[in-house]
């Protein structure tokens, strides 16, 4: 079984909050969040995945979690935050938004405040907090991303995903002043395709975005995950591919991405 040989965290540090976002839905954001969390947990880190897709949650489906106490229960005072932090089978913790909570698809100031409070309370307890944002670049998604120190944009190599990832990058650069963005390319079809995609996006950013900014946006390739039938099989089994087939190419790629994230 591949082990990550990494030094343990040095003393109490503020949790690293990473927003995992994509623009387009269906590119594997949740898959990436959950498996990255598992890989980081294996490296000895305390990890929380916060399913911040307040409109329509799905992390619970991927992880086969039941029963579930959600952020909605916390927001309505039916449960405490501690109650809502659920242990996932793979060594990390999960905080679920709550499915079908349509009212939270509108980012009212109240929801914003509540979300901020939740973040403030949980981040001291973990080494890493992964925010699995919703799809698209709505107010909710943008606000959620704004709570994070780091951003990981997930994209697949096909046109609509690339367009949406590019739009997301533009929005984050202009409205949040972000200059360093991580990129993970999922479902690549050949080795090196991730690097090509990063280069593509960087090229367009250099031509159309950076000239209007005070300092340039730089995309960093955090990982490329190859298209791998094991991923879909794992989903059908309601298991993380990292757990079920740690040696499959997708799993190895996730472990490498986690290692990249942990580099100083």
């Amino acid at each position: 079984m591949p082990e990550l040989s990494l030094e343990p965290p040095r003393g109490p540090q503020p949790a690293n909050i990473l927003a995992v976002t994509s623009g387009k839905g269906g590119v594997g954001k949740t898959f990436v969040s959950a498996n990255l969390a598992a890989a980081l947990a294996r490296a000895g880190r305390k990890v929380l995945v916060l399913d911040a897709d307040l409109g329509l949650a799905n992390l619970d489906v991927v992880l086969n979690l039941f029963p579930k106490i959600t952020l909605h229960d916390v927001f309505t005072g039916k449960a405490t935050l501690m109650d809502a932090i659920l242990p996932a089978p793979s060594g990390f913790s999960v905080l679920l938004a709550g499915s079908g909570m349509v009212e939270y698809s509108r980012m009212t100031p109240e929801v914003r405040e509540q979300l901020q409070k939740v973040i403030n309370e949980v981040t001291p307890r973990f080494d890493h907090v992964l925010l699995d944002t919703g799809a698209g670049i709505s107010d909710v998604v943008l606000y959620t991303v704004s709570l994070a120190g780091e951003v990981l944009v997930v994209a697949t190599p096909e046109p609509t995903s690339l367009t949406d990832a590019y739009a997301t990058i533009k929005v984050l650069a202009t409205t949040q002043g972000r200059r360093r963005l991580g990129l993970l390319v999922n479902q690549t079809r050949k080795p090196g395709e991730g690097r090509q995609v990063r280069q593509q996006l960087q090229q367009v950013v250099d031509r159309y975005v950076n000239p209007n900014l005070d300092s340039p946006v730089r995309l960093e390739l955090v990982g490329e995950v190859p298209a791998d039938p094991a991923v879909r099989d794992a989903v059908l089994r309601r298991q993380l591919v990292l757990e079920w087939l740690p040696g499959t190419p997708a799993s190895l790629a996730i472990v490498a991405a986690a290692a990249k994230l942990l580099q100083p």
Partner: protein
Amino acid sequence: MVALIDFADCHPLAAVWNSGPAPRSPLDRPAIPVSPPSALQLEKALQLLGAAGHDAPGGAPGSPGYLQGLIDALVELSSRDALTGLANRRAFELALEREIDRVARSGEPALLLTLDIDHFKRVNDTFGHNAGDSVIKAVATALLDSVRPMDLVARVGGEEFAIILPNCATAFGAAVAERVRRRVEHMPVVVGPGQEIAVSVSIGGAFAPQWVRSTPALWVERSDQQLYRAKRQGRNLVQLEPTAVSVVSSEEKRLLFDTFQHHDED
């Protein structure tokens, strides 16, 4: 024979007209006679309308046409700011909701401008409240003159205004905002016999997010943040939120994909 009018449940007046003991069936609903007119208390409404310069509604008093005219006129009255005739805050908030809905469905960009007369208190304190009113009316006129008929200009506070510009492209929005600022700046306001002063406005603006349904509160907040920036940076200034250019142009797409295709063929 008295003509009876029975309002269906979906009619806006149903809640008023159809009150009474719960009907056993729709046909049982108690109907309220609309004529003779002496059954309705219309004097207050007509007085208010008269004071606001509206004519009395046409048609036989008490007839449905008359009532509709009365209702329409009252709606107008309660949607407008008395001093300037601009839309008032209530109407503005309704319009914001509608615009957000429209943007969410059509994807067309819409711009919200929030404006504040600079140093307004000073005008009031120096020249009196009548002068203040003159300034407000003059600014209102300047705003109306600077925008398209489809744009909604509202007075939402003492010296605060807002403009909703539907279907407004980025570049156009910047031009309009600047035009407004300049028009107010160059417009002398009479505040007394032979006394003219110059006023200015600070303007903040934000485009409605084109991706999904936002909320009026959030849109206004973003525009107000820009207004605050304009004030802080010296007033008599326009600050628009840097457009979250989530729109990917065809040039950008071409560069994104063409080179990509090229790689694919390797």
